[in-house]
């Protein structure tokens, strides 16, 4: 019964949203009557609340194990702890789409109600978000209905959540990511409304700035958590795989980052307005594209949901229409936007526009990497796969150019160029330090890979530029943009950590019987296989192995496991990690061989922690920017 009410509430939201759109369509060209707007807002708020209540009821159903609902029956189980019962909702397509819509609705209702009633864009923005929410609700209810019942006989027990997903990270990674993705519906709708109205006197940047910054933070946290999860919990042995679904998350992130920089420039000096608007539209368009890629099953990936062309087609047509609507209005308005001043080369704006160009180039490269296999397959039916080598080769030079421009732009001025001499003076020390540092790394590691060294050089260039600047400004008590400095130091560290990780890390495959011990290398003098046990847990069997290592003069105990889950018969590998500041010692067990010995994969991963640390620095930088804005 509650399932039907929940379903009905979602349907009512569809009806109300359609009413708003139809009603406003007929009266659009009439003069704005105050009641018309307040009626629309009221209806809109009610529709949003209906969606929230409907979702809350669905959560209630999941907690109370209503296995007559097909989706809950195939993704939950009565034995699960409550928070997994709730998070099982977003462990597959239908429920995660529902969550997506709830977040979309939440962002929209907050933003719409934050605008003044007299705001000239309020109505059009409201219509735009209503249209988007309506489209996705219809998608949910028509092609992927989470409320569907198994009738006449409901299941007695649920099929259980996929063991890989029985992890606290599932509770938080998808929601964070979705909050980021859909948060940009605000800039998208608002900019479209702005372009549609054509009143270019309006100061529009401040209305959406903080919203976009917050969405950026969620997106960054979401991507980082996904990477962290893959490394620590799923035991994939790495933190980034250039998997198509990672790529479609990275594209909106890059667009959002460019947008943030561009927004900063256009709020200071009214140039780059066209760029900013384009990027603001692009972010959400790329989020929609991502949703399409993941949910149509067009590309095989670890993340993709079941293949259903019908869903893909609906999403493609809907997101295509929405994007074209926004881009169409944008293209129509370009001539009236372009009236602004020219950009002085060497000024801060010129560097920020370079930043935009580089970011868009990266987005395009990733886009090409994602679609290239499809294009080739469409042309001659061959399957090709594009992996890390492609992305590494493309990104190394882009990162180098970015680093050089970041270095140059640090001390630049708005609307003015500076004499070349002052640049030489300012960049002298960072460049020297970077060269010394790179040489130092080479001296210590004695390995060489051109791509990694480009990364190390670029990373330390950004790092030293900002560190020196922070020191300098601290001693001379000059103004410094703290948020920007922290975020860029994070970026420099990220490049550095990723590159050092790629040249220093190594992997050993070992082969031991219980009780044996061997010498691995100079760092790991002893590797002993102490014990093996078979244990029974509530819903799985465990093969648990105890290993002790003598690493760098220290004794380390590791306990990797293999689990076999009863309900699905699935086998998962639980890696065991010993983490120190510089490196992680990462051990997984493989199979038993015929002579009774076991295979082990031992990985020494350097600077992994620094990757998460640098991502959190970027988030922190952004938080500082938001808090400072609020304070002033």
């Amino acid at each position: 019964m509650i399932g039907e009410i929940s379903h009905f509430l979602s349907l009512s939201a569809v009806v109300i949203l359609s009413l708003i759109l139809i009603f406003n369509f007929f009266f659009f060209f009439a003069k704005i009557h105050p009641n018309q707007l307040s009626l629309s807002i009221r209806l809109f708020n009610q529709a949003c609340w209906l969606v929230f209540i409907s979702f809350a009821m669905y959560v209630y159903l999941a907690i109370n194990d209503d296995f007559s609902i097909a989706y809950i029956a195939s993704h939950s189980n009565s034995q699960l702890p409550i928070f997994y019962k709730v998070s099982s909702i977003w462990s597959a397509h239908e429920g995660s789409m529902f969550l997506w819509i709830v977040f979309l609705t939440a962002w929209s209702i907050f933003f719409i109600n934050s605008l003044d009633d007299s705001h000239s864009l309020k109505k059009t923005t409201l219509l735009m978000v209503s249209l988007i929410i309506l489209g996705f609700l219809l998608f949910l209810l028509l092609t992927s209905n989470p409320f569907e019942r198994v009738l006449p006989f409901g299941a007695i027990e649920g099929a259980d959540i996929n063991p890989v997903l029985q992890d606290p990270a599932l509770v938080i990674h998808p929601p964070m990511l979705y909050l980021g993705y859909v948060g940009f519906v605000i800039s998208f709708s608002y900019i479209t409304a702005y372009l549609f109205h054509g009143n270019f006197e309006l100061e529009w940047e401040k209305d959406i700035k903080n919203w976009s910054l917050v969405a950026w933070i969620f997106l960054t946290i979401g991507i980082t958590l996904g990477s962290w999860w893959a490394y620590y919990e799923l035991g994939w042995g790495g933190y980034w795989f250039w998997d198509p679904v990672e790529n479609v998350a990275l594209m909106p992130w890059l667009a959002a980052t460019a947008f943030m920089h561009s927004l900063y420039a256009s709020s200071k000096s009214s140039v780059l307005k066209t760029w900013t608007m384009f990027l603001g539209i692009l972010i959400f368009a790329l989020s929609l594209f991502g949703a399409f890629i993941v949910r149509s099953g067009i590309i095989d990936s670890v993340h993709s949901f079941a293949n259903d062309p019908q869903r893909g087609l609906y999403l493609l047509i809907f997101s295509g229409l929405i994007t074209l609507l926004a881009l169409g209005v944008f293209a129509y308005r370009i001539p009236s936007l372009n009236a602004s001043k020219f950009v002085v080369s060497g000024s801060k704006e010129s560097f920020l526009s370079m930043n935009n160009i580089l970011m868009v180039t990266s987005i395009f490269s990733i886009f090409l990497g994602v679609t290239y296999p499809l294009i080739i397959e469409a042309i001659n039916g061959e399957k090709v796969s594009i992996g890390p080598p492609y992305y590494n080769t493309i990104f190394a030079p882009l990162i180098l150019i970015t680093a050089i421009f970041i270095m140059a732009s640090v001390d630049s001025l708005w609307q003015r160029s500076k004499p070349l001499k002052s640049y030489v003076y300012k960049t002298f020390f960072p460049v020297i330090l970077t060269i010394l540092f790179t040489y130092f790394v080479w001296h210590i590691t004695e390995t060489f890979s051109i791509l990694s060294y480009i990364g190390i050089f670029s990373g330390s260039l950004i790092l030293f530029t900002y560190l020196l600047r922070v020191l300098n400004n601290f001693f001379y008590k000059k103004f410094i943009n703290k948020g920007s400095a922290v975020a860029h130091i994070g970026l420099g560290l990220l490049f550095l950590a990723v590159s050092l990780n790629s040249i220093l890390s190594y992997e050993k495959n070992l082969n031991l019987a219980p009780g044996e011990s061997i010498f691995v290398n100079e760092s790991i003098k002893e590797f002993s296989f102490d014990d093996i046990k078979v244990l029974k847990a509530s819903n799985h069997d465990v093969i648990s192995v105890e290993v002790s290592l003598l690493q760098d003069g220290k004794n380390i105990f590791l306990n990797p496991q293999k689990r076999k889950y009863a309900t699905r018969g699935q086998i998962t590998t639980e890696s065991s990690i010993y983490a120190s500041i510089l490196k992680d010692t990462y051990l997984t067990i493989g199979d038993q061989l015929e002579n009774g010995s076991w295979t082990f994969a031992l990985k020494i991963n350097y600077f992994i922690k620094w990757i998460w640390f640098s991502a959190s620095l970027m988030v922190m930088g952004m938080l500082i920017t938001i808090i400072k804005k609020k304070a002033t």
Partner: protein
Amino acid sequence: MNKSLRFLIVLVPIIIFTFFANVLLIEEDEKFSKFNTKNFPLFELNDLNGIPVKYEYLDGIKLVNVWASWCITCLVEHPFLTKLSNANIQIVGLNYKDSNNKASAWLQKHGNPYILSIYDPRGDLAFDLGVTGAPESYLVIDNQVVAHIQGEMTPKKWETIFHPLIKKARNET
């Protein structure tokens, strides 16, 4: 320059969307016609009653359906399979990662559309066959796997993918 730029901003997305729409539509049509025929893998397994299953059972036209008592969607497609079985389609069950007791009880409770069910608790045969989960269905003609669908067998999938191949095979003999 401005004019062509404006034109491009709208044109490029249109091209991208048309491309993806084409890929989607072609995939739907061709995925099955492009299916590479392969021999049904050899196996040594019993049926649910403990009697060894002979490879010769897969002569003629057989629908091999992967099922399990823990699989909800299997219950959903069950009425349609029963209908097919009543229409003299021979369905061989592949009981996948299940226990004998539960599987037999399931068949007793809901009815048995299968001429026999191969008992594959470890998923060995399923692995060789390339099963990704339950339910899945394979069309096997004279020990050759000629078509494959994942997920629920619907009347639509049956009519568009399996039935034409069966008709063709019947006409040839």
